[in-house]
């Protein structure tokens, strides 16, 4: 209603202007000259032209779209505002040739652009509505043809103008229409895919894949166009600020399309290699309805390791987003399927860590808790093989294990995965030589430990394994010492020996427990292997106090003590005695 009023007023004003000119000049040419010379008259005529364009737009919308839906209208408005702002920015670049013709060309561009947007929305709507009439097809097809023809025409026009007259504002138009024609092609392909899907009797599973690749190719072409345009503009004029926002969105969309394609390929690959097809018997036994699309599963179904069955195509599009079972959220990438090599680290980074970290947490305080420390430092911290020369070495390594258990749970979990490795009983085997300190690590070894590639991860795991072997060896050694002390009670110092024995009894590993404690490395190996809840039975249960005792006793036994060690041993024992007496 308001629009009708405005157009009526505008039409009235135009008539008055024209009539006035004709009344004053009486003849055609003088009146035309009079109107063009008079600014108010021209302003009225411009407004009239604008309203004419508006009316034409409404008419075209009625012809090609009928009633606009609310969302379509909102999209149109939103995009128009951006486009108008950008047009104003473009005016600043070309302010020298700011003529009515120039403004008219930009208005035309905006006008055509808005129809491209509407066509895009309308084709997307095809997927949403169950009723697509023949009128819809006629409208979309004719609109696409018209838009494509207009775009082509303007591109050719811009090209010829640039070739004959040199670079001008036509460059911008040529480029804008080139982008628009990619949009038309994109819409056309989508429309074709949707139409084929609508007319086929069975669901067309590969449509999503085709759409993905269309998106990718068109995105690439657009990105190339934008980059070329910006480069040309920078060389000839100045920085085209007005092209930056659309360029940014194009690049972002392209990036998204690219990652979508990668994820989709990965999902398809996993589907084809990891999971078996569901057999008809299994389909019969189960509910036979795919929980994703709520339709019956007749063919092409896949069974996940958790025994849930889905349509292959449904599962594929879900795996593109997430690598979990839709029903039970089992992380399918880390379930024990033989070809774990198929997994690509990028996907695991999102999915694996939480569950995977549990393996470490459940295994109790085993040497892998060192994982959050820099590896080189760990290497330096671990005592070299053979009998520990000082007790402080092992006492110093023990507490961090406990601390790291707490810290590690809150920190970023490790992002790697390896099959449960068979754990060798390492005690008779000479353990691999660890780097004694940082300086001993060669540049190459250090480089191996960095990075996120597979071989880096393997190098790190190798380092951690070496540490575990060493620790197990140390534990074993401690046990041997304590066995030796238990068998031969030293007669030299009866009171002190008693005190240490009672202290050891207070500790978690009394000397009489050797058979079980000597098995502990084995249990730790199996627990880290199958990730059972072996929290109750941590592999290294010997507290530092008992280690100190055992070592001191054994040192005593062998009578190879130096004066220094003898001194410290006495101090320790005195300390322990004090400690015992204090509670009493």
């Amino acid at each position, binding site marked *: 209603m308001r629009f009708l009023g405005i157009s009526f007023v505008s039409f009235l004003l135009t008539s008055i202007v024209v009539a006035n000119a004709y009344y004053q000049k009486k003849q055609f040419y003088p009146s035309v000259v009079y109107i063009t010379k008079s600014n108010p008259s021209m302003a009225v005529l411009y407004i009239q032209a604008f309203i004419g364009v508006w009316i034409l737009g409404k008419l075209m919308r009625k012809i090609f779209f009928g009633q606009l*839906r609310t969302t379509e209208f909102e999209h149109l408005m939103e995009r128009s505002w951006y486009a108008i702002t950008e047009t104003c920015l473009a005016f600043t670049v070309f302010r020298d040739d700011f003529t009515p013709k120039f403004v008219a060309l930009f208005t035309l561009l905006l006008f055509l652009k808005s129809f491209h947007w509407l066509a895009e929305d309308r084709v*997307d*709507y095809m*997927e*949403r*509505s*169950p*009723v697509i009439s023949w009128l819809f097809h006629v409208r979309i097809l004719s609109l696409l043809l018209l838009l494509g023809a207009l775009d082509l025409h303007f591109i050719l026009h811009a090209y010829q103008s640039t070739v004959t007259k040199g670079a001008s504002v036509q460059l911008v138009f040529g480029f804008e229409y080139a982008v628009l024609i990619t949009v038309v092609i994109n819409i056309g392909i989508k429309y074709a895919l*949707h139409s084929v*899907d*609508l007319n*086929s*009797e*069975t*669901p*067309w599973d590969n*449509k999503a894949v085709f759409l993905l690749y269309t998106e990718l190719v068109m995105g690439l072409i657009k990105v190339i166009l934008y980059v070329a345009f910006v480069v040309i503009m920078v060389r000839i004029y100045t920085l085209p600020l007005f092209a930056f926002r659309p360029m940014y969105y194009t690049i972002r969309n392209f990036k998204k399309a690219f990652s979508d394609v990668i994820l989709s390929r990965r999902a398809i690959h996993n589907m084809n290699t990891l999971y078996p097809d569901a057999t008809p018997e299994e389909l019969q036994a189960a509910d036979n309805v795919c*929980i*994703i*699309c*709520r*339709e019956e599963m007749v063919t092409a179904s896949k069974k996940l390791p958790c025994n849930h069955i889905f349509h292959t*195509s*449904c599962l594929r*599009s*879900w795996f593109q*987003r*997430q690598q*979990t079972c*839709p*029903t039970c*959220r089992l992380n399918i990438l880390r379930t024990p399927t033989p070809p774990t090599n198929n997994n690509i680290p990028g996907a695991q980074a999102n999915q694996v860590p939480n569950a995977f970290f549990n393996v470490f947490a459940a295994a109790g305080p085993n040497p892998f808790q060192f994982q959050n420390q820099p590896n080189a430092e760990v290497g330096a911290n671990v005592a070299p093989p053979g009998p520990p020369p000082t007790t402080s070495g092992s006492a110093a390594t023990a507490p961090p294990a406990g601390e790291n258990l707490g810290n590690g749970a809150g920190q970023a979990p490790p992002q790697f995965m390896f099959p449960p490795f068979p754990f060798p009983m390492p005690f008779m085997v000479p353990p691999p030589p660890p780097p004694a300190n940082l300086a001993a690590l060669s540049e190459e070894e250090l480089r191996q430990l960095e990075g996120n590639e597979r071989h880096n991860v393997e190098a790190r795991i190798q380092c951690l394994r070496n540490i575990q072997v060493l620790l197990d060896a140390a534990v074993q050694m401690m046990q041997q010492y304590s066995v030796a002390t238990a068998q031969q009670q030293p007669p030299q110092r009866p009171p002190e020996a008693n005190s240490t024995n009672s202290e050891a009894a207070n500790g978690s590993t009394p000397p009489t427990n050797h058979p079980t404690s000597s098995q502990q490395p084995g249990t730790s190996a199996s627990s880290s292997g199958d990730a059972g809840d072996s929290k109750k039975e941590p592999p290294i249960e010997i507290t530092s106090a008992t280690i100190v005792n055992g070592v001191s006793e054994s040192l005593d036994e062998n009578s190879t003590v130096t004066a220094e060690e003898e001194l410290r041993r006495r101090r320790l024992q005195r300390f322990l005695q004090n400690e015992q007496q204090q509670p009493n």
Partner: protein
Amino acid sequence: MAGSALRRLMAEYKQLTLNPPEGIIAGPTNEENFFEWEALITGPEGTCFEGGVFPAKLTFPPDYPLSPPKMQFTCDIFHPNIYSDGRVCISILHAPGDDPMGYESSAERWSPVQSVEKILLSVVSMLAEPNDESGANVDAAKMWREDRSEFNKIAETLVRRTLGIPLRPYRAVMANRDQS
């Protein structure tokens, strides 16, 4: 053959029409567009929302059921887990990965197994038992925790308003609260 999202929505609509859960009505606003739904939810019995009929709209993404729909109440509603513009904030409506409040585990997030019916049932139970940990509406969460009787009073006003029985205007209640 129509797209899979459309087929699934049609199947759900059929299911909801054949076996409607108690106290819930839902369906497309316009049968030409199955991606915009309207729902009517009755306030659960024995709660302060008892007896109310709350209209909401559901907007489905093109890749439904892989992504969750959005839900927004179209009436005034005062609840800890509903934004003041009516948007509903519950974990079942959040895709795994985005966590606006930073407290949800992925087990309660959206997955294709969920459905419109389950969403609406969750919303009913959310009306009955607000989760004041995740304050979508901080005022409501605070009042729910600290001044339950005032909360109940506002809820009652809203219920009456949805039924067209004005008791005290909602805005007036809110204004009184602000003054005091």
